[in-house]
């Protein structure tokens, strides 16, 4: 064991970790936003709104993420007519893909709020928007916090897939370091430990939130 290889290359590798975090955070923010819109579309009674959103969700949930990453990387330049960087391309692919998963989480969250809450808000004169904003979404978001945290952890793990389009995120940089140092055991154990610790913290936070929610309701 030569642990020095880790400290020598720590700055390089952790720089990749920062990139992984950035990708995960943008994905969660963007995916959740698009997911909320898709969720409401899926709950709409208008066929022209409902069917496209449903098709979108089923389509992307039926594909491997890595394929979508490839697609967006090779398609984006064709569509936009200019080259898109690896990071931008990864962000688009992740948001587009994860929005489908967030949509289902949000939809379940909205449906977990009883119909009577909507009726109560409507009977006070609130509009659809006001009812959603002040009555339904706060309760729905609270109900879906555990699922959202779990999905966030999964997204963080999946950022490593962006290596296929040359994004130098954390795992890719560990991989590059290994190519230079030929210290696979130490380096990949280190990478595994870091992923494990970060994801465990996420899962723990989720469990605690769930317990707190059970206590309060």
């Amino acid at each position: 064991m030569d642990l020095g290889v880790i400290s020598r290359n720590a700055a390089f590798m952790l720089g990749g970790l920062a990139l992984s975090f950035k990708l995960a955070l943008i994905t969660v923010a963007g995916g959740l936003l698009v997911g909320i819109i898709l969720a409401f579309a899926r709950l709409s009674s208008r066929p022209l709104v409902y069917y496209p959103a449903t098709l979108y969700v089923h389509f992307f949930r039926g594909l491997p993420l890595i394929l979508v990453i490839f697609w967006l990387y090779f398609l984006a330049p064709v569509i936009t007519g200019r080259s898109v960087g690896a990071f931008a391309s990864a962000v688009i692919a992740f948001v587009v893909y994860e929005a489908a998963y967030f949509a289902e989480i949000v939809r379940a969250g909205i449906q977990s709020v009883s119909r009577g809450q909507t009726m109560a808000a409507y009977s006070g004169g609130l509009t659809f928007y006001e009812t959603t904003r002040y009555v339904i979404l706060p309760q729905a978001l609270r109900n879906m916090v555990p699922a959202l945290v779990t999905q966030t952890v999964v997204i963080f793990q999946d950022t490593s897939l962006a290596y296929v389009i040359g994004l130098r995120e954390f795992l890719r940089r560990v991989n590059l370091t290994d190519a230079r140092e030929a210290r696979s055991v130490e380096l990949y154990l280190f990478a595994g430990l870091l992923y494990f610790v970060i994801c465990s913290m996420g899962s723990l936070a989720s469990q605690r939130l769930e317990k707190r929610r059970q206590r309060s309701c």
Partner: protein
Amino acid sequence: MKRGDKGVVRLIEIRGVSLWYCKEFKALDNISETIEKGQAVVICGPSGSGKSSFLRCINGLEHFQEGEIVVDGVSVQGPGTDIHKLRADIGMVFQHFELYPHMTAMQNITLAPIRVGKKTKRQAEEKAMELLVRVGIPEQALKYPEELSGGQKQRVAIARAMAMEPKIMLFDEPTSALDPEMIKEVLDVMIDLARGGMTMVVVTHEMGFAREVANEIVFMDEGKIIEKGSNRSFFDNPKNERTRQFLSRILI
């Protein structure tokens, strides 16, 4: 708003309303009823008879396919009707309270006045406090619904419905989900409202309440109005066989 012969104001006019669910099940069958300002009308009948659907048609929570409902001169399903504005004039209280669990009693009451009534937070809170005093629980203002008893929850719900200063109050089995010892505290608030001249439509099986304050009692079964009568005649001299059966079952 129309004035009848005796100078009474017909606040709610329901003409030939029919409602289907899923195009097959007829929940309301040609319902007509006129409710005057200041009247308290009690609707009773077996479960599934359409009482709640009837109530929800009045404030547009339910969409009926035939007939017309006019509230305070405004057709509920009329093409130019601002349903949100109309609903603000019609308070509603639900069987399962439906308080917003993420808000305090005070926030529950002030949400609509602030967002819909465009009152300032302070005005809304002052009004809410008055209402909480009126329903007898000012000390519960800052509690969350989960910290309140059933009776207290329903009283907050009544205060919430009153916060928009409605012209009409609808009650959908307000005491059915309550423990027996809490029924009275809610009924007392409702009796107080009725005596104060509030126009009320109350779906309930509390016949004591009906005897005490109802101007008219409507008996429904299978989506139809089977019988309606004044307080006295309904109880002492029900004409229809089904009404008689129903009354004998609930008046033990």
